[in-house]
């Protein structure tokens, strides 16, 4: 109701102010507005400055091969809440150019680099348009529909070679190595040398001498990672140090890249459900939730009541387990010797026990289905959850609070470190605890409620300083709010079926597009799915919060000590499975 009201005012405002620049997207199943590339910057400037769409949630693209065009898709939101605005701009597949939004929304930087890398959309005016996930010697743009991977078999699964009569012949066995592996022209893998200096040279170009420097000092470039104990995976920060002070920092990622989106476009809709588990592997239930919401929007199904409650219970338990672990490992990054981390893991294990009881798996839950969840929660498991939520977890969160919050060393190391102001946080499209710690009370559960979150009474955790300490406080507060939601959900959960309709192996998804977003533990997790009526998604894009949160990493770490960079990274809470996809 409220939602509709807001969107109608949005429509009116947009049509009155931007009537000359935008045209409505009238394709069946599609929504939003189309804009010509030459009008894009002007329209976006008006959107941001006059209509209040200051939060650029997602930038991605779709390759419409048959129409010979690449369509860039933008999702804008207001940081004060409400539904969003979808903007699309097309260019030709050959040498198509789109103006870059990075000067207006700095948060578009990495997303545009990703779109260039994977789709080959050239963003004009982008400060640093390089590949971000693929390696420098890669040929082509893998998310284009005419790009084929080595050992290509078919456009879509299930592959004929393995179905239906069980002939287990893999095409890689038929193809000797190298036969259809594509390399760029003049590329010889035997003689090719990586260019390790490119990032460093870039750093040195940025180098500006400090004004009030009396002693001339040398600067050194240090690679923190990809093999490093504090990068939480294979992530690399190339930092330039002046003594121990960071004067420049460039994140380098993609070491864990497996082209999640391309694989997902080959999969059927249902096959993607377990595949989303592997994104943020500490929060698989949240990933399931986001994807289920996106596809349900396309299919137009609504889950039954009991399923909605189960979903909320699982998502909130996931949030607690993720936050408690982040808090523990943040202390590890501060140099504590594993004690807080192990205390945190103890609680996480109890939550994982519950996940195992309901879904059969501790981490890769694969529990949600389109229109519900895969199986019901037994009554004794509900009892276990009740006990955990009312007794053990509140106690343990208070314990964590009393041990850490007033610790002198924690305070001196965290307060005033890695500061991101509210304006910066919105501009950089930061999400989740990072955004809320900077004083922006933006939580998708409240700002644009999905599922049944409008029924629960909870507060949006928010702090004002935007430093590492406030991010920790926000996470602590959020765990308590999650417990509040859990108690209400466990009180109100009704009986009944847990799946709309009967379980289906192959779902029918009508043509169209949908953007489903949830508030995951790391921030706004969005799934942009385009269907063309076939059993496989035509386009599947993940708005990965920890990837986009990294855009502001350099700003947060600038002129801090190298030890602080590690802490800032820990407070951003990245999961490389989600960053690299």
């Amino acid at each position, binding site marked *: 109701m409220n939602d509709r009201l807001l969107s109608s005012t949005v429509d009116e405002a947009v049509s009155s102010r931007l009537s000359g620049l935008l045209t409505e997207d009238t394709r069946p199943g599609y929504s939003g507005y189309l804009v010509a590339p030459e009008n894009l910057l002007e329209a976006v400037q008006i959107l941001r400055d006059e209509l209040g769409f200051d939060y650029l949630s997602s930038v991605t693209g779709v390759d419409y091969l048959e129409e010979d065009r690449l369509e860039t898709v933008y999702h804008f939101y207001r940081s004060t809440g409400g539904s969003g605005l979808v903007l699309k701009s097309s260019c030709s597949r050959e040498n198509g150019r789109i103006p870059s939004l990075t000067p207006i929304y700095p948060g578009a930087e990495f997303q545009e680099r990703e779109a260039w890398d994977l789709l080959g959309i050239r963003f004009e005016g982008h400060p640093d348009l390089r590949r971000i996930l693929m390696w420098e010697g890669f040929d082509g743009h893998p998310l284009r529909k005419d790009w084929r991977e080595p050992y290509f078999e078919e456009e879509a699964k299930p592959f004929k070679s393995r179905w239906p009569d069980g002939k287990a012949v893999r095409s890689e066995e038929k193809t000797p190595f190298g036969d259809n592996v594509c390399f760029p022209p003049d590329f010889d893998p035997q003689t090719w040398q990586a260019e390790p200096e490119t990032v460093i040279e870039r750093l040195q170009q940025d180098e500006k001498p400090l004004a009030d420097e009396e002693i001339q000092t040398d600067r050194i470039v240090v690679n923190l990672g990809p093999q490093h104990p504090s990068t939480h995976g294979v992530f690399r920060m190339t930092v330039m140090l002046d003594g121990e002070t960071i004067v420049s920092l460039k994140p380098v990622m993609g070491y864990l890249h497996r082209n999640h989106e391309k694989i997902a476009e080959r999969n059927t809709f249902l096959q993607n459900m377990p595949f989303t588990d592997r994104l943020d592997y500490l929060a698989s239930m949240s990933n399931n939730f986001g994807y289920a919401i996106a596809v349900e929007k396309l299919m137009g199904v609504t889950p039954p009541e009991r399923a909605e409650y189960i979903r909320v219970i699982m998502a909130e338990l996931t949030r607690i387990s993720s936050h408690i672990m982040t808090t523990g490992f943040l202390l590890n990054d501060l140099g504590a*010797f*594993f004690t807080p981390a*192990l205390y945190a893991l*103890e609680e996480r294990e109890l939550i994982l026990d519950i996940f195992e009881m309901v879904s059969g798996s501790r981490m890769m839950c694969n529990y949600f289905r389109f229109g519900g969840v895969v199986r019901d929660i037994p009554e004794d498991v509900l009892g276990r959850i009740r006990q955990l939520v009312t007794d053990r977890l509140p106690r343990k969160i208070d314990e964590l609070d009393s041990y850490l919050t007033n610790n002198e*060393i924690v305070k001196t190391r965290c307060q005033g470190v890695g500061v991101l102001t509210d304006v910066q946080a919105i501009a950089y499209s930061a999400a989740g605890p990072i955004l809320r710690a900077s004083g922006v009370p933006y939580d998708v559960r409240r700002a644009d409620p999905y599922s049944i979150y409008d029924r629960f009474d909870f507060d949006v955790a928010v702090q004002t300083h935007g430093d590492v300490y406030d991010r920790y406080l926000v996470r602590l507060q959020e765990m308590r709010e999650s417990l509040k939601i859990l108690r209400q959900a466990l009180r109100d959960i009704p009986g009944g079926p847990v799946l709309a309709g009967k379980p289906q192996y192959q779902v029918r998804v009508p043509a169209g597009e949908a953007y489903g977003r949830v508030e995951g533990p790391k921030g706004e997790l969005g799934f942009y799915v385009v269907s063309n009526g076939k059993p496989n998604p035509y386009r599947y894009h993940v708005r990965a919060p920890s990837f986009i949160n990294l855009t502001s990493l350099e700003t947060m770490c600038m002129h801090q*000590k190298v*030890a602080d960079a590690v802490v800032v990274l820990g407070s951003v809470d990245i999961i490389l499975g989600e960053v690299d996809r």
Partner: protein
Amino acid sequence: MLVEWIIKSVVIVLFMTAGFAYVTLYERRLLARMQTRIGPNRAGPFGLLQPVADGIKLIFKEELVPHNADKLIFTLAPVITVIPALIITAVIPWGDTLTIGGTKITLYLTDVNIGILYLMAVTSISVYGITLAGWSSNNKYALLGGLRATAQMISYELALGLSFVGPILIAGSMSLLDIVKAQSSIPFILLQPAGFIIFFLASLAEVNRAPFDMPEAEQELTAGYHVEYSGMKFALFFMAEYIKLIAVAMIGSTLFLGGYQGPFVDQFPILGPVYLFAKVIIWLGVFIWLRATLPRIRYDRLMAFGWKIMFPIALLNVLVTAVVLVLVGG
């Protein structure tokens, strides 16, 4: 006489090396208990053979020397680090004179009348080993670790040295035996509480223990100065670190906790080493407890703490002690 010295020296070196092995086990078991784990308990009863297994593993590991490292210094650095750690305890008395079969055996290697100066001098040498290790590894992390170690140790040595002055003034001697004997009625921790705290904090920094373990900060510098070391060379660094830990605990016990003094030690001098041992165990337990509990202080704050807080307080402590002694004693 010479034979006695040799036997005592061998006993001390063996005790320190064996002590190193079992301190690692003690630390791992105690840490595990504090972290709701069990710790190593597979090798031998209560995991008592774990250090042996670790030692054998380290001996048989391949020793790598980085490509552009300065090979001589790279090899020399662990030796320079470990030898001062081993000889540090030569001047620490383990007990008073023991009479066995009519022969009087002193329970200390030697009683130098400038024992404390010897301690200061020897502990400072091992900084060279760490710095040279960081320098010669041809690795940026190691270099940063080595630099941090140098800066940190220089700053904390001042406060450490000044904290020694209190006991020296009260005992009126720089011999450690005299200092211990002066504590027969009341340990200096009660007379010199500020000195004790300064000594404790400075010694934590001196042996690079949490929360002052900057030079090998795992989260930032992977392992700091010894990142490129493997096999037995790494084991030597490890050994130096833990032996210095024991040495610091012994020095601290001697200066502030009354050393080998304890009930009935006059009648049974053999109890002396037992008391010293017990005090060292407690002291080490506190070190391990701190490691399990505290996050690391940031490097620049550590330096600021050393120069702006510890150093003035240590100076003030010396001044107050001297004035009070003159007033009371004069």
